[in-house]
């Protein structure tokens, strides 16, 4: 099946939707502006048995719950890696052997593995091994892991690591493509995730602090130096978990957070994952001098993590029949004109677009449109910034 589920709409509805979304500015069926998201209700820390959890629900009743659980797991030792037997105790000072020891002290030895994170997506009405579910969870975990930094946070010492289980559950069958909902919920859950404070040192068996209040956040919080007036929270995480946004294009219009009906007439739909990192971290490839300037000013350093084309269901929609070619149109009596109707039917499949008649799109997306979509998402001070601001304002309990 396609990556997004098929919606049954009549050709007349599709033609109407497509026409109204192609206007400048587009008229969305629910009256939103092109960049407007559906209002949602969010809360975190709802599950006391987890390391972090969140819940988001839409006004239409679609609701997602994410629970994050962490377990200590022994790291498989591989030959060829520096083994621990020979140099116990000398770990802390060992870094000085490198020339640039203080620049990245203690950070470099942390290694992460993508297998340390396990993400499951449960959508009622879909089988566990359904391709759509696999696609969704691959997309979400890809965004989480693609910077290579996240798995390092799970490093305890060279023998042990945290294994993080991220379980995403949709409470009811989704009424629209659930990707943004799942992504925003797991973002909040990860933000609220705390791991027990480590008391042991070095490579001995890990031993943790019992005091949950002392447990540090997985995404460390910092008190912002410049207090942003909008968010009432005192602490914010500099580096944030990724968010994945669903964007689609109809004609020249770029539309965010499309509903199910809107996605059905999309020319192209993309899932774009972005994150914001602390602007101070010296990532190896941010060394273009001109990048630094706007970063410090905006206080948020957006990074593009992944893009995937979502196969829009528009290609699977039934085509409309133009009046000129409609056998049931007009007062011709059906009995006599069987042969001509055959011809007409064959013709309609090939004729050019008639206004007001729906025709499933063929081919792919124009390169220019794709570029514009990505650019619109990454725009400074654009939608992503505002979404991140709004998520920041959620009380993390």
């Amino acid at each position, binding site marked *: 099946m396609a990556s997004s589920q098929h919606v049954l709409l009549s050709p007349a509805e599709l033609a109407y939707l497509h026409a109204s979304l192609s206007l400048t500015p587009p008229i969305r069926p629910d009256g*939103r502006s092109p960049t407007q998201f559906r209002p949602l209700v969010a809360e975190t820390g709802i599950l006391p048995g987890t390391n972090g959890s969140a819940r988001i629900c839409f006004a239409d009743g679609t609701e997602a719950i994410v629970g994050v659980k962490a377990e200590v797991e022994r790291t498989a030792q591989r030959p060829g890696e520096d083994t621990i037997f020979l140099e116990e105790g000398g770990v802390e000072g060992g870094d000085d052997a490198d020339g640039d020891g203080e620049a990245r002290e203690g950070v470099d030895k942390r290694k992460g593995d993508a297998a340390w994170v396990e993400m499951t997506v449960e959508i009622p009405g879909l089988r566990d091994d359904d391709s759509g579910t696999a696609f969704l969870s691959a997309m979400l975990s890809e965004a989480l892991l693609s910077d290579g930094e996240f798995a390092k946070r799970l490093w305890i010492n060279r023998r042990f690591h945290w294994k993080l289980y991220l379980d995403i559950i949709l409470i009811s069958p989704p009424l629209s493509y659930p990707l943004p909902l799942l992504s925003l919920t797991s973002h909040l859950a990860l933000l609220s995730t705390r791991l027990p404070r480590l008391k042991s040192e070095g490579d001995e068996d890990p031993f943790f602090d019992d005091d949950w209040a002392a447990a540090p956040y997985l995404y460390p919080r910092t008190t912002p130096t410049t207090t942003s007036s909008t968010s009432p929270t005192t602490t914010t995480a500099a580096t944030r978990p990724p968010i994945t946004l669903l964007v689609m294009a109809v004609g020249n219009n770029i539309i965010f957070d499309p509903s199910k009906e809107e996605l059905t007439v999309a020319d192209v739909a993309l899932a774009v994952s972005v994150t914001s990192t602390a602007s101070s971290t010296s990532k190896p490839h941010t060394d273009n001098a001109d990048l630094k300037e706007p970063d410090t000013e905006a206080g948020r350093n957006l990074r593009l993590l992944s893009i995937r084309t979502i196969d829009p269901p528009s290609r699977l929609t*039934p085509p409309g029949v133009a009046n000129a070619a409609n056998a049931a149109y007009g007062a011709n009596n059906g009995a006599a004109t069987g042969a001509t109707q055959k011809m007409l039917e064959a013709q309609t499949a090939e004729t050019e677009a008639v206004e007001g008649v729906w025709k499933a799109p063929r081919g792919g997306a124009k390169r220019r449109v794709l570029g514009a979509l990505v650019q619109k998402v990454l725009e400074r001070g654009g939608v992503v910034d505002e979404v991140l601001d709004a998520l920041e304002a959620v009380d993390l309990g």
Partner: protein
Amino acid sequence: MPITILPPKPSRPINNHQHPSEDDVSAASDSDSDAGAAIDQDGDHAMHPPTKRTRLTTTTTISNRTAAAAAAAASIVTPGEQITDDPQWMRGHGTYVAGTAAGSASTITAGSIVSSVAGTVTRTNKLLSVRPLRARYTPEVGDLVVGRIVEVQAKRWRVDVGSTQLAALPLSAINLPGGILRKRTETDELQIRTFFAEGDLLVAEVQQLFGDGGAVLHTRSLKYGKLRNGVFVAVAGMGGGGGVVRSRRQVWTMDAANGGGQIDVVLGVNGYVWISRHVETPEAEAAGKGAAGITNMEESVSTTMYSSQNDRIEVEAMREIARLRGVVTALVENGLRVDEDMVVRGYHEAVEMAMVSPEGSDDIYLGGEKGQQLAAALTGV
């Protein structure tokens, strides 16, 4: 602001009334007047032991209609609750008659009428039925419904009308092109998909019911047929606070503000709503000319009956259609009933809200807080 994230609300009080503001007496008088049954007014139902919860104890309270109406807050029963043990009542939908085999420990008298769903007690002459608070649509003969074709079979279509069963639309129950009175031929059977195909929306009337709750539809009228030039919105079916309720008029044409022209609204009893631009039907045109005879009229009407091509629709009309759709969704999300009066009032309210809003009259968004504002304005809070 592209996104609004709200903190969770404290759980919403369960409220079945259409007008949460008004007191129970007046709320009951508009919709549930025939549910007039004698009930305990202390509003503390759950505290009573089941044996004391017998609602209809004597006929005198029933016959005293004025007293009953005055006291008629919605009388809510739950499954397994005895409604009456008076043998004069007949069992209707949502109830069953308790068997004689009930043990001595049972609090229900044998032969009494017991509720099988959670809902309000309705009385029609001697028939007692319980209307569930929330349920899927149950078709009744004569209902005007909006449906979507989900399957095409050899001689009939299967139509989704939001009911427990798919409704059937036989080929013999539609108007064939070329005049109402034309005989059905084999060619029509072969070309069944040219009339309605999968996904097509149509407005039809329930003609007949099967024993299993399935409905047979017909479109043998000029006002029924395929839908185009508009948008579809599915709201909750009947019952409960929100949703479409059966009313005198399910279809009307209204004048839109801001140069939107005329807009047709079809409220299917099943909760499916169609909002579209009003198209001057040839029948009206013909009437205007005064020349066409009756046979001519039938033929010209059927030309557009199975069209899936939209007419050219102005931007203003599209905007007003979207605004109306927003009104309907806002009504549903705020638990209000959807009928002509509410939709028209809501629409005018929405137009006025847009006038004073900073974005101007082009602002048609009615989700979230704006929807609540609208609902508040309608209920007069």
